[in-house]
């Protein structure tokens, strides 16, 4: 029996006013896989992510999540199907505490969010789950601190905690190491390595070397299309990879 892919993308096209951001992108990601998507600036990586997350709609082509067609599904519904994402530039709820940020993330999947009669601060089970999610990224000790008073690296971890709190099946990470110091990178990397295998991870990186040890398979994007695709060793050895990075 063939296992259904975690993510299956077919012939995805998207143009902006004649400019083709992605052209015929095909991508298969197996369940549990760690996939790295790299490519120079403007290669269409972020557009591809936005198409997967549902922020924009493709002109043609299809996206399927665990065998389910989601091409036309609104983004918030995709989250309910087990898709989570983080952003290259972190945008959370700056004035709220870390705890509350994570609680908002938990509420996103809970029917409780429509409830105008229950008070938020009385939801013990919710608070406990949020605390556990923060503990998982090592930030439990500063749970009552407003987000604005945290460092950029800490915010990155909060964002990951928020994504993991939703128990996603597929996690999209948009340049998770961007803007971090060497130490912070190490912390975040350790965090990502600790994510269990029932979560499939697709990560975008601009710089190939940063996340090389994390990736099992790598897709190199160039001019909106997947140019090279294969295992880590294959892609690194492929002359086209060098060409794209050095020639671009």
């Amino acid at each position, binding site marked *: 029996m063939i296992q259904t892919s975690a993510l299956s993308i077919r012939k995805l096209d998207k143009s902006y006013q004649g400019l083709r951001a992605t052209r015929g992108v095909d991508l298969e990601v197996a369940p549990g896989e760690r996939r790295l998507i790299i490519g120079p600036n403007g290669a269409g990586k972020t557009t591809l992510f936005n198409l997967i997350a549902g922020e924009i709609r493709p002109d043609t082509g299809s996206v399927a999540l665990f065998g389910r067609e989601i091409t036309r599904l609104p983004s*918030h519904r995709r989250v309910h199907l087990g898709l989570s994402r983080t952003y290259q530039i972190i*945008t*959370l709820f*700056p004035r709220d505490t870390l705890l509350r940020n994570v609680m*908002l*993330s938990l*509420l996103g999947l809970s029917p409780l*969010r*429509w409830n105008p009669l229950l008070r938020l601060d009385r939801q013990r089970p919710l608070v406990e789950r949020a605390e556990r999610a923060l503990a998982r990224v090592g930030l439990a000790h500063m749970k009552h601190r407003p987000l604005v008073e945290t460092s950029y690296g800490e915010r990155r971890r909060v964002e990951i905690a928020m994504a993991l709190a939703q128990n996603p099946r597929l996690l999209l990470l948009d340049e998770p190491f961007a803007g971090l110091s060497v130490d912070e990178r190490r912390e975040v990397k350790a965090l990502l390595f600790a994510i269990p295998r029932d979560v499939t991870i697709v990560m975008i990186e601009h710089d190939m070397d940063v996340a090389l040890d994390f990736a099992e398979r790598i897709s190199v994007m160039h001019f909106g299309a997947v140019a090279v695709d294969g295992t880590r060793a294959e892609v690194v050895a492929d002359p086209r990879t060098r060409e794209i990075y050095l020639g671009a």
Partner: protein
Amino acid sequence: MNAFRWWRGLVSAFGLLYLLRLLLPLPFANEVIIFSIYTIGCNFLLGHVGLISFGQPAYLAVGAYATASYLYYFGTNPYVGILMGVAGGLAASLFVGPFFVRLRGDYFALVNLALAVIVFYLTQNVLVAITHGDNGLLIVDRLSRTPVLDLSRPNQFFIFALLIAFAVWAFYKYLDDSIYGACCLAAKINENKLRFLGYDDRGIRLLAFVIANTTTALAGAMYAVYLGFVSPEITSPARAADPLVVTILGGVGTLYGPIVGAVVYTGMMDLASKFMSNWELIIGIVLVFVMLAGEKGIWGTLEPRLKRALLSPAAGSRPIKGASR
């Protein structure tokens, strides 16, 4: 203890409002209360959901005309009339809401203002058979006497309005602290992120829109019963910004801002109209100055100071308590 603290502010605010009635003429007090109910929906939308609602007069008119039409053509019980007004507002906002909440903020504001003008035009020129155009609907002698609180008497209406306002404020205070309230606030701050946490942001906005506009329709219904008369004047485009101005004057998103704003604004208009007949000039200038003055508004500036003044002895004793425990 906790519950008591929660209610304390609310009870004392409305106690003050009741005392206000001893100092100020009754019509003024009544108007202030209705005006603040009129404003709180707008305050919620602007302060907690981030929607500029420029079309509040439309929903006010829907409430007022639904109430007045019921009392003019069908029944005589003012309580039923007010319920009709609320139902009318609910129906109207459920009808236009799904269209409106899809829009970006600036479009939302403009479309709502257009709606207010359209409703004005409808009541004045199109639905003349029902609304009697500029002549309006006179219902003052159609109101039946009701036991307990007789709404046809201004002093009993005041008690009724005060009770309704208390209920409305308790509801909005609860809403602010609720899970849904937290989601609204989050939608205001970062709608995009919220969508990728699995929230249906349009749904959140739609519910807020319906809640707020139904409250506005309630104010309209109360106006109709209180004045005993409804005319297109109630949705006059010239006064479309009133609730927004009162919201900003009082302090956007603050609980008691609408009350403070309504007291000051109504007072200002009353005084000004004693000296000048040209009220447009006054409203306009007040509006511009309120906008330029600052973002916090009166209550937004006063509240932290009041809290400090009232709580400072308590705050001083707290660490000792903590130490003994």
